[in-house]
């Protein structure tokens, strides 16, 4: 079931006047995400831009109970909260961890993997702004190839990014989803669906970052949409091992027309050194990937 804007809970669980940069797409995702999680939630937050958004002592920009933890310990802390809820006999309270891409794909991966293997029951959100933005834009495991960052300053990152949802899906957990701040309703529905499953549920959110990627704040949603409409980033869910595209990515399957990836890459100063040849390579990879999707979807339809 798809939620509409008018169905989305009106109550805000974050406070205005917070410390996030103007145009920070995390704010969009966080607002929608907390609406999905609801007030009866305990949150875990490792160091990240969210720590900053959530505020400096003694004022909190979140209305949810929230535990700031050390960088590597996010998923384990979520397990600790669950254990405490259980032994103190409290039911009906969700536990959710909300970490950045560094906190998930790099320093937080070990604890997250262990929690998946133990089957601990919480939602783990990775908001992926594709770098260590809070410390001044350094490369992370999810920074895309060729992106200029503060520690890949001249040539850009030489390696492709990790596919974290695929890593998570390999744990055999029931629900893995990829969504984007540019599609808050898709994000909302995925977190809502995640809450219906046990074990670790993993939600990966693409978060355009104006200062980190080098674009004007007003284009934050545009960039998020372009990432999807060019087929570079995909909205999908892997529910009980079944992958299916959702929302705008599902529409791409129907329309069968991708926007050129150049539109996305050239809109960001972090890709300013990318060569035409490299751009073409990226375009080829995307085109081939989607042709594969189109083909398997035809086969599936043909088989009906």
């Amino acid at each position, binding site marked *: 079931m798809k939620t509409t804007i008018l169905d989305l809970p009106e109550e805000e669980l974050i406070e205005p006047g917070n410390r996030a940069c103007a145009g920070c797409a995390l704010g969009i995702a966080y607002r929608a995400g907390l609406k999905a999680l609801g007030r009866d939630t305990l949150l875990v937050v490792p160091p990240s831009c969210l720590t*900053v958004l959530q505020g*400096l002592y003694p004022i909190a920009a979140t209305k949810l109970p*929230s535990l700031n*933890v050390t960088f*590597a310990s996010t998923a384990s802390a979520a397990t*600790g909260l669950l*254990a*405490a809820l259980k032994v*103190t006999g409290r039911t009906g309270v969700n536990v959710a961890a909300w970490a950045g891409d560094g906190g998930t794909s790099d320093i937080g991966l070990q604890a997250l993997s*262990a929690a998946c293997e133990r089957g601990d029951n919480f939602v783990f959100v990775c908001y992926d702004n594709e770098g260590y933005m809070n410390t001044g834009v350094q490369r992370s495991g999810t920074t895309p190839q060729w992106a200029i960052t503060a520690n890949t300053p001249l040539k850009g990152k030489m390696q492709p990014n990790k596919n974290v949802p695929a890593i998570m899906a390999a744990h055999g957990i029931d629900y893995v989803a990829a969504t984007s701040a540019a599609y808050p309703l898709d994000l909302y529905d995925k977190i809502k669906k995640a809450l219906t499953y046990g074990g670790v549920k993993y939600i990966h959110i693409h978060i355009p970052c104006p200062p980190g990627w080098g674009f004007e704040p007003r284009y934050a949603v545009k960039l998020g949409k372009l990432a999807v409409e060019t087929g570079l980033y995909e909205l999908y869910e892997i529910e009980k091992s079944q992958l299916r595209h959702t929302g705008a990515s599902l529409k791409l399957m129907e329309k069968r027309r991708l926007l050129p990836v150049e539109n996305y890459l050239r809109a960001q100063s972090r890709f300013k050194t990318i060569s035409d040849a490299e751009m073409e390579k990226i375009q080829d990879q995307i085109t081939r990937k989607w042709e594969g999707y189109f083909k398997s979807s035809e086969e599936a339809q043909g088989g009906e």
Partner: protein
Amino acid sequence: MQIIETGNVAAALGVKLARAQVIAAYPITPQTPLTEKLSEFIESGEMQAEYIPVESEHSALAICIAAASAGARSFTATSSNGLLYMHEQIQWAAGARLPLVMCVANRGVGAPWTIWNDHQDSISQRDTGWIQIYANDHQQIIDSVLKAFCLAEEIMIPVMVCYDGYILSHTHMPFDVPDSEIADAFLPPYRPPYALDPADPANLNTVTMPDGRPDVRGDISPGYMEIRHLLQHDMVEAIPALKRVEERFRSMFGRGHDPYVEPYRCDDADYIAVSLGSLSYQLHDVADALRAEGVRAGVLSVHLYRPFPDRIIAEALNRCSGVIVFEKALSYGYQGPLCSDIKSALYRYAQGKPFVTNYILGLGGREITTQDLYEALKVSCSPDGGAGEETRWIGLKIPAGGTQT
């Protein structure tokens, strides 16, 4: 009930009596049998708790930190590099003022790898804001675990109960297991002064500025330094608090000991050997031997290492002529940390200022023979016993730059 069991089992029985609610642990020698025992208690239904087998010590303490933040009595245990791997979390737990209890079965640290006993692991965590209690025998281990929860929850500071790996953790000794009904009266269920709760939401361990700033009501909050000053203030307050805990324990269980130091033949002693942990009992024999030769020697075992009961220790030592500190740990480039602490205490409180000398021994499980201890004390228990090198090594087979002797 009197039983004969290992030190690790004594610790596990203490945790069971304390009705710890959340236990998270990662295997490491020589701690492992402790938490294995707890998992057995829980699986068999003897103990009601959540046991979480984690992928690292860092996560073990992460779980305890989060569980305590949400109101659960939480416990973990480790040794050696496991403790070092927790270091960040150890500091975090103290700064967050969580009443955790952790047992440390003391073991040397790598590199090179060693699995045998010394105190370098817990001593290296001295400055983290945890209370450190060193137990000398199995009875002290089980009793200390129970008292540790009581103290931690009274002052909201975590407590480490340290005991010697193998020497205590793996040896079978008789000890009394406190009656569980009395234990329940001694340590009632944990009532957290704050627990994460949607009905009373708060953002904990928030980024805190050097200076205070107005809260939502306009009152000026403390800054980081005030919060840390309160930790120091309350750590010092833990010294009298531990005495109150000890007195309650004694009144309810009919046994107990000085919570700070354990003196042996110190009253008229001219020379006092000082140590942490089980080594002190070996030193008792040496003091007896020296006394038989007319040397008035005594032994002072230090139970409470942090907060450091400096005045109490100085008062225990200030009437003697010489203090000889035996340590299984070292501040590399200087001397044994306990030696430094004792000198500091004596500088402030003892006008007579006995000399202080220092022996490093038993690192990485090097055997400590009573003969070696006897020879060292024989040399040091004399009016000029403080002369020469302040820090000497016992049991070294190849001196630096030398060949095997």
